[in-house]
């Protein structure tokens, strides 16, 4: 589903990703772990096609398509979802309006008609309830005045509504209390299917006991230095990055 080969990325003229390889197949959940500053968010933003992340070398292939040729919104239409480490506030735009515009934009890019208002409301309510989100939050402006945990939960509602093929979740677990963590984990697990894949980015092992990954990768200084099964996460927690790598 996702094939990254020898990826080099510059941010503000400085090389941050230095030859990264990663392959994720449908039906798999991978975790990338690494310390602050390792380049995890850079990888996530590059996959999503953010402007100021300059790919100097290497390739990213998604669902058989060359991602470098695709605009950010086209990547979303092809089935990519990025859960933000720091979800952005958009004053004046209600969550509902935002979600509906997003969903219909994606549908349009895929040659589908707009979803009817009634159908949309039903879908959103169902997903919000499932993720324990207060329905009132749907009417509020996107992420404005949300607590850290509420923002992350909101990302999960967006993911559930957009129903992506590949979800890249950048530190979705950070800033959550244990109850919220369980709800979010549940939301991620629902998203794991035979035809979908999930890439979890985190620097704690915590989330991984609720969402068990098929593979764990250790990232240091812009490269994946070690890959293994879910036991690698525990090993990291015990021994620290320096010893494992």
């Amino acid at each position, binding site marked *: 589903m996702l094939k990254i080969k020898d990826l080099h990325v510059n941010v503000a003229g400085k090389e941050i990703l230095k030859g990264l390889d990663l392959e994720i197949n449908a039906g798999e959940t991978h975790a990338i772990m690494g310390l602050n500053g390792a380049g995890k968010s850079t990888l996530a*933003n590059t996959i*999503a*096609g*953010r*402007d*100021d992340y300059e790919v100097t070398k290497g390739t990213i292939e998604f669902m058989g398509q060359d991602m470098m040729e695709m*605009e*950010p*919104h086209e990547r*979303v*239409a092809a089935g990519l979802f*990025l859960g*933000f480490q720091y*979800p*952005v*506030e*958009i*004053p*004046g*735009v209600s969550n509902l309006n*935002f979600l509906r*515009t*997003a*969903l219909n*934009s*994606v549908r349009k*890019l895929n040659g589908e008609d707009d979803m009817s208002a009634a159908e949309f409301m039903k879908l959103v309510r169902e997903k919000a309830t499932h993720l324990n989100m207060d329905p009132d939050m749907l009417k509020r*402006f996107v992420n404005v005045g949300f607590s850290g945990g509420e923002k992350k939960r909101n990302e999960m509602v*967006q993911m559930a509504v*957009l129903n992506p093929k590949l979800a890249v979740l950048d530190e979705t677990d950070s800033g959550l209390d244990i109850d919220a963590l369980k709800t979010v984990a549940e939301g991620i697990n629902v998203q794991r299917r035979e035809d979908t894949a999930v890439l979890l980015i985190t620097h704690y092992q915590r989330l991984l006991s609720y969402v068990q990954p098929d593979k764990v990768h250790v990232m240091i200084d812009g490269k994946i230095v070690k890959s293994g099964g879910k036991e690698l996460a525990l090993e990291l927690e015990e021994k620290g990055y320096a010893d494992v790598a």
Partner: protein
Amino acid sequence: MAGTAEAQKQVQDVTGEYKYGFVTDIDMDMAPKGLSEDVIRFISAKKEEPEWMLEWRLKAYAAWLKMDEPDWAKVNYPPIDYQESYYFAAPKKKDGPKSLDEVDPELLATYAKLGIPIREQEVLAGVEGAAKVAVDAVFDSVSVATTFREELKKAGVVFMSISEAIREYPDMVKKYMASVVPVRDNYFAALNCAVFTDGTFVYIPKGVRCPMELSTYFRINAENTGQFERTLIVADEGSYVSYLEGCTAPMRDENQLHAAVVELIAMDDAEIKYSTVQNWYPGDKEGKGGIYNFVTKRALCKGKNSKVSWTQVETGSAVTWKYPSCVLAGDGSVGEFYSVAVTNNYQQADTGTKMIHQGKNTRSTIISKGISAGKSQNTYRGLVKVMSGAEGVRNYTQCDSLLVSSECGAHTVPYIEVKNPSATIEHEATTSKISEDQLFYCRARGLGEEEAVAMIVNGFCKEVMQHLPMEFAVEAQKLLGISLEGSVG
């Protein structure tokens, strides 16, 4: 501009170009080119005006000749040659259509194309659940149709073109015209007094809540023709009216002048809500052509506890010079100004308001949202003035500017004059660049670049947009997006 399905569909399938830029091919009655006493006589005769009106126009013309064009606004345009323009253009009519069935089909087609419901049955067949909106359609210099007159008449509401009002309600027109904006108020107002052609007259009697939204739709069609609209709205004691105006013009390489005067008068406990969606042709990407929109709009809150609320969404015109204002004379009266002004490419807007607090315990609120893109210049200019006798005045002003490009300009010029120490005046202003984080967040949720800008801008304008009547709000939101097309990248 009402929210008919047709209008909404049209707005949806835009291609990024100004979509109202077509020309209607129709036989026109034109005044001779240029401006002179004879031309004024011609206009007055065409409108079958009484002698007093002609005298009034000629006096205004004499006054205008002695005045100078203002140059204090932060706008630049080449000198206007007033002799190069036409001052009267009207679709030729056989005998004056008495009913809509007699209106030239070309005209009806034009309004259909613009999405304006000037046939009542079309209004009623519009979007499910849409409110009824009565329309006065002004084409170049004349009103071609007003709808729902009978129904309004039953409520005692007078809604007709100003030309008709001059003939049918001369006393009222004499009493109120130029009572809020004096003839010599400013250069463009004086010019308007001399050559004004059409516009709307509204009278809401005591205690009447106008049963539907009233609207006027202005269309400039003829080449090299100025449009001089004149609107007068009088809300008698305890009455309420919501009035909307919309405007479009064809794409032409020459600049055309639109110099309007709008006067509102609110008696005791009366309320007037006046909304504008201004979408005159803004000129092309290189700044060629477009309308000069030089407009004087002022309300007199004459009665105690009266209220006037101006809401404007200004997206069109090459140059806008416009300050809808409130003279808060009645004790306890309230003035509001909610404005969104979008400029793109080479557009220039110098717009804002004046709140003149004369009465005791008068209150005003000013919310201005300026969005500049391309190489445009966008200025908020506002005055809050508190007279010495005005005890207990309160004003709140908030001016926010959003920059979409790095080559545009946003300016805030607030004037505050307070002659009574009991006043509470609050002023807040912000200027920010459109956030890359917000743009990317939208794009990472499937929005195209321009959709993302439109979404963020609409959010930025939310506090103003929510004051628009529903029928206008949907269209105005789309208009914001359309106006900013081509502004990113």
